[in-house]
Structure formats: structure tokens, C-alpha cells
């Protein structure tokens, strides 16, 4: 696990010198390239997993205090 984290950190740090100019970002602006492609789909998916797995919270999830367990 620790090694995976260091690999990610290395990728991020080593790529810091790469600069993609704004006019080169056509593909990056595609809808399927966005961090969240569909906000409602992402929420429904998160809700499905949050109520059925022991791993809520941690990242971008303020609650996770157990649940009202709606679904």
C-alpha cells in the first residue's frame, strides 16, 4: 500500500514540469474527461456503496456516521 502511494506521489511530482497550453486541451475538455461526468449518477453510486460497505468517509464524504440507511 505504501509503495503504491509513493508511486502516485512520484508520478505527480515528476510531471510537475509538464505544461499543456490551453489551446492543447481540447480532449481534456471532453465531457467524459471531467472529474465528475454526471453529478447525479455519481451521487446515486456513492449512496449505493456508502450504505452497503464499511468504508464511507475519508474522501469527499462528510457524513458516514453509519447511516439513515435509506438505500
Amino acid at each position: 500500500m505504501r509503495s503504491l502511494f509513493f508511486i502516485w506521489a512520484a508520478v505527480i511530482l515528476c510531471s510537475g514540469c509538464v505544461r499543456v497550453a490551453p489551446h492543447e486541451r481540447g480532449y481534456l475538455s471532453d465531457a467524459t474527461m471531467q472529474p465528475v461526468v454526471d453529478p447525479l449518477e455519481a451521487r446515486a453510486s456513492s449512496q449505493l456503496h456508502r450504505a452497503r460497505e464499511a468504508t464511507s468517509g475519508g474522501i469527499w464524504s462528510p457524513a458516514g456516521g453509519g447511516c439513515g440507511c435509506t438505500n
Partner: protein
Amino acid sequence: MFCGDAHSGAEEPAPEEAQEPVREPWKIQEARVRFNYFHQKGFGYQSQAGPGPKGSERLDVYEPMFYLRVRQNPKVEHTVTIPIDVITSASTDAIDATTSASRYNEAGTIQINTRVDTTDDDTVNVVYGGHGEEWYASVFGGVGYTRDLAQDNATITVRVDGSFDWFNPYGHRPGGVVPEGNEWDFRGSFGGNAEVSQILNPTTWVKAGYGITWQKGELFTPWNSVPFLCDPTVSVCIGRIREKFPGTRLKQTVSGMLVHYLPRTSSTVRLSYRFFADDYDVRAHTLLGEFYQYMTARAYINAHYRAHHQSAVYFWTNNLGVPLDLSAPRTADSDLAQFWAHEFGVKVLFHLTPPGRAHQHDMDVYYNRYTRTNDLTVDVVSIGYGYTF
């Protein structure tokens, strides 16, 4: 004071024009609606809905969702998300089996995100909202800061969040040795996150994040129960007792994502990984792979596969033995057991707008199947519609 003197005199603008602020009306930029249907079937030790130690976890959820993105002015944008859940067999227990009082439940959440671009490179994001359902309510809020670096080739985000829940655990009355009452219980969750994202080249970006969440209060689920003194040979238990959790919980996660576009085939590949660890001895790995393929310029198909493995909390049991220690933590919740979960899904999206129109609308349909190795399956069907102004 020095500056004030330096800019006096000829540079003073005409009083009427200088004091006239330009006010733009609020503008709706995007509206989305979605309807989800969840059908869950399976069995878990925490459920009393059955003759044996494992009760039914059958559940149906009808969930309309609404999303609105509104621009207040060039620097401020709000998004409002409202999911509403209508649940059948929400909390089947002995009382419900007789009265059906809680066989149906409704839940609603409103979440507002306000994004403020304080400079060209700095963004503050505030989130707040609330959730309500039978016997349970919650409010939450948080604030985040994002800094764009190197001409937006990289971003750094830090964020803190909190939530406060209160509920009446005795609205649900699993039979057992715990005395009943009419008291409200509380719990709070507080979290911090940090995330870095980086564009690697014109078709690839990555991000990595770390998060921590600390919880305090009553962390159990009110209607869950734990079988005790079971005879496995005949699947009979002497009784059930309410689950009990430690008073605090500390969770940590590390995650990463890689997103890559393939121009030659008009495809997008997304890979995500998340590691979770907490002080209940849960260790979990989650891997998600997504593939998008444009069929035409106005339609794509998406498929995904998700694998999740978790270890059980250290106090999980499906059969409490003697001596019965009422002060010790215990749960039989199948969600907190050790299992593998596999999910796959298929989605089709169509852009319905004729070429050349400024406004765009799209429609999609998807199907997901979520299966756990400890006897739980969920089928999800969803249809969504979006309009971009």
C-alpha cells in the same frame, strides 16, 4: 492614505458612473433530473425478517433526483442537489411485521455547493445542507480551497467537512434485553481532505488524495440486531440483542485516479483506486475501471467494473456466546463483515440537440448490478435527462 492622495484629482471618475455597479441577473446554467430504481435482495444476520439467524434484506427504493447549477455572477456559482428516497421494507423488524408501521419510509436531502472564484487561480467551495427521514435527521457543512498552479496544469485542494446527526433509536424496537426508552442520540463526523491533480499531456490527467474522518457519538444503526446463543445445527437462536459500537471511529483513505483519452478511437479510459483503513480493523481496497466509447459525435456508450474487498470490523459476530457481555461492542451487520463486492454497469447517453443550437439537452439510461459474496445483490435501473442553458 498615501495612495488616496496620489490618486486624487484628475483621475477621479464621474460620480454617477463610478457608483453604478453592474448587476447581472442570476442565471440557470444547467438542470438535471434522474430517476433511480433499486431492487435489493439477500440475507443478513442483522435482520430479524426471517425465521433463521439470517433475515431478509429485501428492499426496493424509488429515487427521484434533481440538480440545478446557477451562476450568481461571474465569480459565484451555486449547485443544488436534491435526492428523495421512497423505500419499502426499510427496517423490517418484529414490530413492523405486525403493524407495518415502518415498512415504508421516505427520506430527503438538500445539498448546496457554493463556488467562489476569489482570483483567477483561487477558488473557495462551501457545501451545506441537511437530510431528514423517519427517526433521523442530519445537517452537514464544509469548506474547501483550491489553488490552480502552472497555468491550470495542476491544482491543489484542501477541505474540511463536518456533519451532525441525531436520531431516536427507540423508534425501532428490536426485541431483546435492552430496555426501551424515548431518548435522542447524537453523533458527529469531522473530516479533512487534501488532493493534488496534474495534467500529464493533452490526453491524460491524474489525481491523488488523502482523507481522514473522525466520528464520535452513537455510531450504531438502530434497527440492527445481533443473534445470541444460536444452535447452528438447527438454525435457531435464543434471542437477539441490539448492536453496540465503540464511541469513536477514525477512518483514513488514500486514493488515486488516472483519466486518458484515445483520440484515434474516440474513447476514454478512467481508472480509480482507493485504500481505506480505520481503527475498527477494516482494511478495504476498491478498484474502478470505466470505459467510454463515442458511437457518433452525439452518443456514447459507457461500461464499468468495480471490485471491492474489505475485512470485517473486529467486533463482528453472527452468534454471541456466553458469558454475555452487554458492555462489549458487537454487530452482525453484513455491511461490516468481510466480503468481496463486484459491480458492473452499462450506460448509453444521447445528445438530443440538433447541431448548431446553443442550448443542449441529453438523455441517458443505465443498468448496474452490484453483488456481494455474503449474500446480497442490488439491481439498479436509472434514467436521466439534462438541459444545459
